[in-house]
């Protein structure tokens, strides 16, 4: 088991109100899996993904990755964990406006202290992979939504992470672009990456190997797709 979540809980406390984003999550994910998470708006999908990505901390429960308990790690160790293991595709791209596409992608390698030449090579490869090499020197604002999403994916995969988290990677895209992105993700999965993807599209969910349905902060159904 690559990932195992048990009794994961995430409460948000603000002054008076207390929101339960995640109530009690039990979830195991094998290495090489492609999991699609579905559920109505506000059921906690993004929160779950954030916790998987360690950019948010659960208020209860345990999260182990490759046998290591992550909830006990400090800030610096988590940063190192993300650096080494994780690729993140956001729902709203989250590219840095002031950097070019190339620089945005390179950012995922910079914190690994990789030699410049090696970084260049990998960035070029990742851009080829998603088909935006011709836009390398452009700034995000000069790209269409689909192109930005592919750049965001390139940034997620450039470090060859073991786990790719994608929050509605096709949400902002038209059918054509959405299909392209799914195609890329499937290829990455075929090459060995473990993928967890949030989506509202049943047809995209069907392209994954497993489908997890959530409701009110809990996992309700987890089914393997027949392939």
């Amino acid at each position, binding site marked *: 088991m690559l990932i195992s979540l048990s009794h994961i809980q995430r409460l948000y406390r603000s002054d008076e109100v207390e929101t339960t984003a995640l109530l009690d999550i039990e979830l195991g994910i094998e290495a090489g899996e492609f999991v699609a998470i579905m559920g109505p708006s506000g059921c906690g999908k993004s929160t779950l993904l*954030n916790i998987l*990505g360690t*950019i*948010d*901390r659960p208020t209860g429960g345990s999260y182990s990755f490759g046998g290591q308990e992550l909830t006990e790690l400090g*800030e*610096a160790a988590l*940063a*190192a964990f*993300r*650096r*080494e293991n*994780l690729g*993140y595709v*956001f729902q*709203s791209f*989250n*590219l*840095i*406006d*002031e950097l070019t596409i190339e620089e945005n992608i390179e*950012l*995922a390698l910079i*914190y*690994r202290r990789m030699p410049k030449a090696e970084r260049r090579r990998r960035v070029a490869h990742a851009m080829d992979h998603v088909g935006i090499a011709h836009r390398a020197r452009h700034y995000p604002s000069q790209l269409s939504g689909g192109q930005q999403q592919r750049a965001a994916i390139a*940034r997620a995969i450039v470090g060859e992470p073991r786990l790719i988290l994608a929050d509605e990677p096709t949400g902002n895209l038209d059918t054509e672009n959405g299909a392209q992105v799914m195609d890329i993700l499937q290829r990455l999965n075929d090459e060995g990456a473990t993928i967890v993807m949030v989506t509202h599209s049943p047809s995209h969910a069907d392209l994954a190997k497993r489908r997890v349905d959530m409701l009110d902060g809990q996992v309700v159904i987890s089914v393997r797709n027949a392939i």
Partner: protein
Amino acid sequence: MLMTIVRGVLRQARRHPVYVGLDLLGLALGIGVFLSLALLVRYEYSFNAGLPGVGRLVRVDEHWTPAGVVPLEEADATFHALPFLRQDFPEIEEALRLLGTTFRIERDGKFTRFDGYATDTSFFRVFGIGLSRGVADDALSRPDGLVLSEKAAMKAFGTLDVLGRRVELNRSGERSAHVVTGVMRPVRGPNLLANTEMVVPIPGEEERTRSCFQYWGSSCGEVILRLKKPEDIDAMRARMRDFVIRHASGAENDHVAIGPHPEKMYQLLLVPLRQTHFYDVNVEDSDDGVDRNVVNAIGLIGFLALVLACANTVNLATARAGLRAREVAVRKTLGATRRLLFVQFMGEALFVTTIAGVVGLVLCEILTPEIASLTGEAVTVSYGFVLAVLLVVIVLSGLASGFHPAAVLSGYRPAAVLAAARMPSGGRGAARLRNSLVAGQFAIAIAIIICTLVIDRQTAFMRNADRGYEKSGLLIGQQMRGSDPVLQRRLLDTLRSVPGVVAVGFGELEPAPHSLSHTIYQYAGPNGPVEIQMLFDRVGSGYFEVYRPRLLAGRWFDPMRGQDEGPDAGNLQDGTGSFNVVVNAKATVKLGFSTPGQAVGQVLTAGGLKARIIGVIDDVRFVSPRDPVGPEILFFDTLSRVPFVNPIPAVRFQGVTRAVMAERLNRAWTSVTPDLASNFQPADERMAAFFTGDERRGHIFTVGAVVALLIACMGLYSLAAFSAIRRVHEIGIRKTLGASGGQIAILLLRDFLRPVALACVLACPVAWVLMRSWLSGFDQRVSLSPLHFLIATAGAFLIATLTVLGQTFRVARAEPARALRAQ
């Protein structure tokens, strides 16, 4: 419109209290400092301006250029020239002699001191001074007349109605009876008479006996001329050389004249009184000289403080403009024109600067007395001037700080702003503007800090630097009048018997000497004859033990050896006799000896007088650290044959505190010469005037440095705060990609500190050039060490880091998930 502007500003203040607060405070501080320093500069520049008809008032200076010495200009001129001046120059309407004098009134054994002049009856006419009691034209016509300033009248009698009162004045031991014949009104603004408390006619006795009334080449006071027309001065200058040739030349042995060719070494210069304040820095015998460059530098600091504060406002306003983009877009969508918006933002900027201006005015009120006491100048807030300047400052800084944001804001295209996910930062141009402003601010602050450090080091160095004699345990007394050997011997004996006294000695020179007399000596050296001008001093037995100069070669005088005894007045005047002398190291250098030892045994001549060098001492510095120590020749005097002329007693003591010693010595002194106020002081007190000016101005620089740094930091702080808000999102992304908190902190710090680094690069060379030229004005000076630059830049970095650290940490530590949601 006005209401819209006020409401706009208030809403801003409520939304961003920190930005608006810092903005206002910085600007107010800048304006306050600027106004205060402007007042100080105006004060310095207005010296003598309050004298009626000052344009026609001229001081006659003597300029000496004897062969082989540094030229010397004196504010004093011989009174002997006055009748000739009147006679040869019809341009002169009136002329006046000013003999600076210290008066004392003795009451119950206590002396009250008054400063003033013995002068001519034309005094009040020439300076245009009105009398509040008495009649100006008659006040000084009787020989026992006395005119007091209003302040002095209050000080002496507690009332202004003092006409006809009888007073006995003590002028350095000489008593004279006077009747108060007038009380004079003060002259507006700073002027050469500001400290004048008493004016009396010149005593006929002095006029008959003192050499400065009878000889060319001897001076003891100032000659002031009132011309008929200001422009006459040029015509007079052109004829001055001929005037000197006509009246000051004479045979070689004519003591009234200055030799057959006086024009070769002697010039009379005319200095308009309006200029003397700055001019006098390089003039001897004048005590109110101020370096114009320093005054300008102070003005510049004030101006820079204002520029810094305006830069802040521009910076914050452009930064804030981004936050208001949405407001602008909505307003535009609702039909506001670009011009209307421009006017609104401009109006807001002006409104803010006006508030800052008012606060600045209050600050100026508070700061000015402080600055006045720091500099020792009687600067006061003059409202006409301040308000006029303030108005200009408000309008200019309002326009400066409002223009860029107003242009940027009113120029936003609404669609782009509304469609954008995030707030625009004003684009790359605005970011560059902000960074260069911060760099400029810090460059100015760092340069001022470096200058402050150097000035500080130099002033401290001057105070503590080696002066060639031992300062501690040394007290120097009042210069005695005359040459009465009995009185001189009695004083020495009395002082020697005071408990605690180790040694007592006379010299005719003292630290911060009142007068210097030079003589030209020849030396028939191996490489041809050398001629140098040497400072003359006559020292007694005990002098060596009192001052403890360092003997570099040969020996000191020995009272047991008759041939060590120095010349008398006749020997000196006629150039006869053969004597043993001690010279200082500088003299041996000027004479061309490579070591002090070589000079020992050599003979110098001045006319027929022979001086055999028996010893060489290290240079003893009695003069200002700005001036080089000149070659000096010392003669010995055991008081057995030759009396001293106006000697200065000095005492070395041990085992008691300075205060107790001074008290005992003063008492002993009074028992010998009750008429002459005693005044035992440590050497440093004597020399204080040489340092205080630089120290006071050093204080101003310190104030400037602190304010500049404060304002620059305010700017950096709000910029960091603003930038942190804008970058929360980016930081979230970077952290998701694996950046650690430390890496983020470094990234932010590097961005914030890049302009500071640039500032260092800009500031160091400028400060280096400035300080090198300032230091070159000192003979005794510190070297310009890189340490000052290191300290200043490191300090700036440290303070800048501390300023942004809070912001940096807040952003660097934020949970990425929260940061990403924040959009």
